[in-house]
């Protein structure tokens, strides 16, 4: 298998390969104790590496090509998914998917950014970078959910809204602005989960909600570390520093009170065990929904309004 290995994962992988090698000989040689020792060492190393990731390393995990995407979570967490297409104006944007699904007893509308796994599917999904049609499709589905009192779950994972010619022509900025405006007053619960990359307005465009959750190894900020580096440092080489400066990880954002809750990932990241990740996320989502469905629609909207009104730090 053509596995992607990140630089800091290499020592772990080397040890794991060594264990596999040793197992082959364990029938003939008495090395069981050695193997157990080595396994403990791997576990320790893993804990050490993954509990001390730099911000840039987390950005890399958030972008890991084997990381579960929206459709994977839908597949692993829900049943009877009915995907709905198109914005009824112009197109069906493949970089945002959505539809009705059942999360056990909860009927929900799930909407999320969708990346591809290989070149072909990435081209099809436009690398998870929506055009205005994507945001307008998302809004159409959210209004549909509101009409039928269905809670909404959105999943954020995009390197940004697409900076293209047609995107500008068809009003990328208007589409995102409209979503922020409309989402702030939808009369059904909205749970937002950042599952990978939360790049600026392209992510926020489906990211206004009552509860903002974030998987442990994700990033969410006003700009990507690379673009920030190119603008402020006038070079692409300062992405690590930019990632540090932007304070863009889940722990950072929880401290800044921009997200409400961190959803833990399996040791090594969501991509190492998607079913376990999905099962845990499902449990968390049900917990959140069970609280939100108790609230009256007006209360829900008031709380959401107050939540965003509080965001920001300044001196008077």
């Amino acid at each position, binding site marked *: 298998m053509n596995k992607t290995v990140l630089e800091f994962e290499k020592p772990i992988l080397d040890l794991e390969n060594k264990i596999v090698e040793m197992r082959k000989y364990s029938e003939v040689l008495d090395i069981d104790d050695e193997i157990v020792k080595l396994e403990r060492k791997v576990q320790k190393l893993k804990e050490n590496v993954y509990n001390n990731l730099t911000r840039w390393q987390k950005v890399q995990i958030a972008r890991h090509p084997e990381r579960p995407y929206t459709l994977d979570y839908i597949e692993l967490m829900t049943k009877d998914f009915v995907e709905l297409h198109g914005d009824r104006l112009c197109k069906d944007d493949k970089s945002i998917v959505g539809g009705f699904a059942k999360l056990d007893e909860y009927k929900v509308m799930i909407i999320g950014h969708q990346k591809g796994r290989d070149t072909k599917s990435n081209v099809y999904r436009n690398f998870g970078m929506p055009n205005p049609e994507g945001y307008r499709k998302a809004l159409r589905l959210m209004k549909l959910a509101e009409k039928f009192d269905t809670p909404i779950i959105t999943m954020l994972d995009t390197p940004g809204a697409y900076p293209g010619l047609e995107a500008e022509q068809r009003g990328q900025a208007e589409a*995102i602005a409209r979503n922020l405006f409309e989402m702030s007053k939808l009369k059904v619960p909205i749970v937002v989960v950042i599952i990978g990359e939360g790049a600026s307005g392209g992510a926020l465009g489906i990211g206004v909600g009552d509860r903002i959750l974030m998987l442990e190894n994700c990033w969410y900020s006003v700009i990507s570390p690379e673009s920030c580096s190119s603008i402020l440092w006038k070079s692409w080489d300062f992405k690590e520093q930019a990632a540090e400066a932007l304070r863009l990880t889940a722990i950072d954002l929880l401290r800044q009170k921009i997200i409400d809750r961190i959803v833990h990932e399996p040791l090594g990241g969501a991509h190492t065990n998607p079913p376990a990740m999905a099962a845990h996320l499902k449990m968390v989502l049900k917990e959140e929904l069970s609280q939100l469905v108790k609230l009256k629609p007006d209360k829900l909207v008031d709380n959401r309004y107050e939540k965003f009104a509080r965001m920001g730090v300044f001196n008077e």
Partner: protein
Amino acid sequence: MAWFKRSKENIASDSVKMELPDGLWEKCPGCGEIIHKKQLETYLWTCTKCDHHFRIGSQEYISILLDKASFKEYDKKMRSADPLDFVDSKKYTERVSDTIKKTGLNDAVRTGIGKIHDKEVSFACMDFSFIGGSMGSVVGEKISRAIDRAYKNKIPMIIISSSGGARMMEGAFSLMQMAKTSSRLARLAEAKLPYISILTDPTTGGTTASYAMLGDIIIAEPKALIGFAGPRVIKQTIGKDLPEGFQTSEFLLENGFVDFIVHRKDMRSKLITLLEYLA
């Protein structure tokens, strides 16, 4: 026709090189015309020859659009904190204090209540000269409070945008100002109070993708750069030159995203007429 005479913009054959005394004259970026500052002011900082609209600040817009001495400023002292302890080539706190010294402004927007033809309006105007008119917590909060004043006093809201987008040095806080201001505008709309958005050169990024594009009426000054992504980024992405006039006010009008374009000298009278319909 004189075929040997250069007709391209900016290349005038009859221009004479001259030394400009500092601070008295301005050169028009549109046509190269040299204009005396006093004259420029009389023409509301538009070129007497080609109608180019010079970038101006909140103080100028207040004098152009609002009734004389009617403007009462609010939250004038609000300043950026440095929630991320942000450092790039320079510390954010230094960048802010240097800009305050240089511009005499405390941040990139001025807000308050003023009158247009005796009608009270909540008024906000951005200043591009303050870190590229970038929107951080202060801009977001001041705009939000301005919308609140419109809401509470049941008066129209007018915002003049001039901004490169969200302010990087406040990270996700800046991003959230987009959601914060947009939700305020949603509440204003539910109360059936009018919001007029005026776009000037340039209006891009997170500012465009929030309050700038949410006006009941959206007005643009001629030939302003208006868009989501910057032209350089788009050019890099698509690997082609951008068509002429791309992301200008005229381009947005043609594509259906602004209501009309108006010359600066006619802006006030247009607002007066509009407010008769809306308020």
